[in-house]
């Protein structure tokens, strides 16, 4: 009997995704465990496995379709020799593709966004429905061209009989509906319209929410790095020159560990504020912001306070690479209790970061640079870095933030604790 394969929820907060690639064709035999499709969520590309076996009878949502709601059918699995059901008598959704369960903590579920579902689903017949369930009249040729261009037909105005969408309507239409780019009044040239990726939309939504709902306050401190850099040089000198045990600890690795230790000694920042209560987390999971094409993602070093520098270094390197390749698993970026954003490599003097909700704090790390410092009434030169802490004032008060920063500075300037 035919079963629907549904858009899986790859993370607790995922409301919709993009079918980026089909790994099976219509008519292909599918066995349980076979990879059938690649789904792009707001943060990563995931491969989806089949749970049942059968024949991939129909691909309902073609490749490249964005904004496919979780739990909406993306394909129909039939048994061998079985006829495809009409779409109207939708088969029961048994073969739901597996959603790798993440041990994500209690991030409040987001309300479904108002993004349209895939009305450009083509050449499947489901394309006749828009999100409102209203029938769209589209010529078959227009439907195909829209799918080829990645157009959402719901946003196209039809000029044919009774508003039927014709070829000319999709020929002229722009891909997707971009955020209306306000052209500068002095620049008559038309803005280039680039559709927002699902990641860009999520960044926009989450950071807007953060800035609007979370009362940020900022505390900065100058931290001398010479001791830490000296330690790093010594550690790296101890690495085998080649082979399996080779390592190369970065300043970032050291800072992850330092932040984790500061949180352990001052756990008041390892929290999450909710209306009713404040959650204090036993584990210290550090999210590190990684810049990737078209956005950023925050893979997590879990229990960073308990890991060795070597472990942190290896893990951070692996996560950053897979983040850039879009291959992170949801549990690798979902959750985290505190974030670090490091722009030291860009030579910036200082900056403040937006809190990554629902966390309560984020540390912005700028570049270390030689500065004049006063030591015992004398001028001296030291390598100094300005670190700025952004904190959710609902959960953390100013004094606590300052206390934490001092703890961090103490660790970085006396870094041997990092290796004990």
């Amino acid at each position, binding site marked *: 009997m035919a079963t629907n394969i549904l858009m899986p929820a790859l993370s607790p907060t995922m409301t919709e995704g993009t079918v980026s690639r089909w790994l099976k064709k219509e008519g292909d035999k599918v066995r349980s465990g076979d990879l059938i499709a690649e789904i792009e969520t707001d943060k990563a590309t995931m491969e989806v496995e089949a749970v049942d076996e059968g024949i991939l009878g129909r691909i309902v949502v073609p490749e490249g379709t964005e904004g496919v709601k979780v739990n909406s059918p993306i394909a129909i699995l039939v048994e061998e020799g079985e006829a495809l059901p009409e779409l109207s008598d939708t088969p029961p959704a048994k073969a739901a593709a597996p959603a790798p369960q993440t041990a994500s903590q209690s991030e409040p579920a987001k309300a479904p966004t108002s993004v349209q579902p895939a009305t450009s689903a083509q050449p499947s017949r489901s394309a006749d429905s828009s999100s409102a369930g209203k029938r769209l009249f589209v*010529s*078959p040729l227009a439907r195909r061209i829209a799918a080829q261009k990645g157009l959402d037909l719901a946003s196209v105005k039809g000029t044919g009989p009774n508003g039927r969408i014709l070829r000319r309507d999709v020929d002229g239409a722009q891909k997707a509906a971009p955020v209306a780019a306000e052209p500068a009044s002095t620049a008559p040239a038309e803005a280039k319209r680039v559709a927002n990726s699902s990641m860009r939309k999520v960044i926009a939504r989450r950071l807007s929410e953060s800035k609007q709902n979370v009362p940020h306050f900022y505390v900065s401190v100058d931290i001398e790095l010479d001791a830490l850099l000296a330690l790093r040089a010594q550690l790296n000198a101890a690495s085998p020159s080649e082979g399996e045990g080779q390592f190369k600890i970065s300043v970032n690795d050291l800072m992850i560990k330092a932040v984790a230790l500061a949180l352990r000694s001052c756990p008041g920042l390892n929290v999450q504020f909710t209306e009713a209560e404040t959650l204090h987390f036993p584990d210290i999971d550090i999210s590190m912001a990684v810049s990737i094409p078209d956005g950023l993602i925050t893979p997590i070093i879990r229990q960073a306070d308990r890991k060795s520098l070597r472990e942190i270094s290896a893990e951070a390197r692996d996560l950053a690479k897979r983040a850039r390749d879009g291959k992170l698993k949801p549990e690798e970026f979902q959750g985290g209790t505190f974030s670090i954003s490091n722009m030291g490599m860009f030579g910036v003097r200082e900056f403040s970061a937006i809190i990554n909700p629902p966390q309560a704090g984020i540390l912005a790390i700028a570049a270390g640079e030689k500065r004049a410092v006063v030591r015992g009434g004398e001028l001296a030169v030291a390598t100094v870095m300005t670190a700025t802490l952004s904190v959710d004032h609902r959960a953390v008060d100013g004094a606590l933030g300052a206390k934490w920063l001092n703890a961090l500075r103490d660790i970085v300037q006396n870094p041997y604790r990092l290796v004990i």
Partner: protein
Amino acid sequence: MDKFDLIVVGGGPGGYVAALRAAQLGKNVAVVESTHLGGICLNWGCIPTKALLRASELNHQLHNLAEFGFSAEKVSFDLEKVVARSRGVSRQLSRGVSGLLKKAKVKVFDGRAKLAGRDGKAHIVSVSKDGAEVTRIGAPDVILATGARARHFPGLEPDGDLVWTYREAMVPKELPKRLLVIGSGAIGVEFASFYRNMGAEVTIAEVADRIMIAEDAEISAMAQKAFEKQGIKVLTGAKVGPLNKKNGTVSTQITTASGTTDLVVEKVILAVGIVGNVEDLGLEQTKVKVEKTHIIVDEFCRTGEPGLWAIGDVAGAPWLAHKASHEGVICVEKIAGHDPEPLHPLNIPGCTYSRPQVASVGLTEEKAKAAGRKLKIGRFPFMANGKALAMGEPDGLTKTIFDAETGELLGAHMIGAEVTEMIQGYVIARTSELTEAELKETVFPHPTISETMHESVLAAWGEALHF
């Protein structure tokens, strides 16, 4: 002066249809027609030629009965009766048009119309009969649907006796033994086919390098082969020399790339195109633009002069009755403030009723290639179609041209029996913007020649089942 909402000048397939549609929309309409309601199409074109061609097909079949197990002796025809039947069909239909207009309360004026200035917003139309003005009528909108007539060239002028236009060719008193047809468009080819099937020796001279130049080259080559098989002599790239008339014959020299042919015939038919009837309409005092004997119009048939519209042959190619009728409807709906869809030139089918018939819509292969499209082309021969064989009509081809990327049906080209009745299927596909997917899904009845339409689409995707 009688006032109307709309005056239509010309009662052909453009004009009378425009008048009927306007009446449907509640307009008070007048039609001015100088000769016959129904125009050339109904009186001297489409319809009477079909009656003649039907007779010539019968003659052909009566001489080829053995294939079906029949025999007949002393088969003969009376040309006068053949022509009389054709005229009868025209008369019947013309009366029908008159009845339709009467029923729609359209006022028909018998006479020639000429624009005679304005009275405020209204155009004044002077109606005259035999050179004398009969009446003046006025309306804010006037549709010019005056049609066209045969084109002449210096040295190639009709004389009504030895050198004919379609007009004389349609009412022959006797069958010419030898006939030269100059021009191989639909008109030339249909007359060549008629006279050949009635028993005349026929030569076609075409100045272009192939016959039926508007059609796909592959189809036109097949048509030429079929005509030659029937005994028609086809000369392409042909220049016809002076027509020397002597003792009831015409002699001339026809030069082609392969040399010069001396030809003596009893009759010559000129079928080298048409010119628009733009003279003596009073256009000089208006902003109407005329280029190469045709009135320039926009996609809703508007001329440069407010309230003046032009449809059909007088408004330019393609010179087809169904194009004129459709323009009449669009034009009237626009006048009535509706929002009609302009006529898409590539969605107008063309039909030629020779034996074999030819029908097409959309782009030829050559033009589709020139448009830079990646193509998928399907061909299905009638030889592989059961119904065609059963009917004894194994010569034919259905060719379809698709855009390989979008599946758009760019063009369809058919040659063979009944293709003029079938091409509308592809026209619907084009107008509705169907792709190969819907055409593949369509169930075609078996056994019919229309199955070649299905198979041709399948063939374009390498999926033909019966070939």
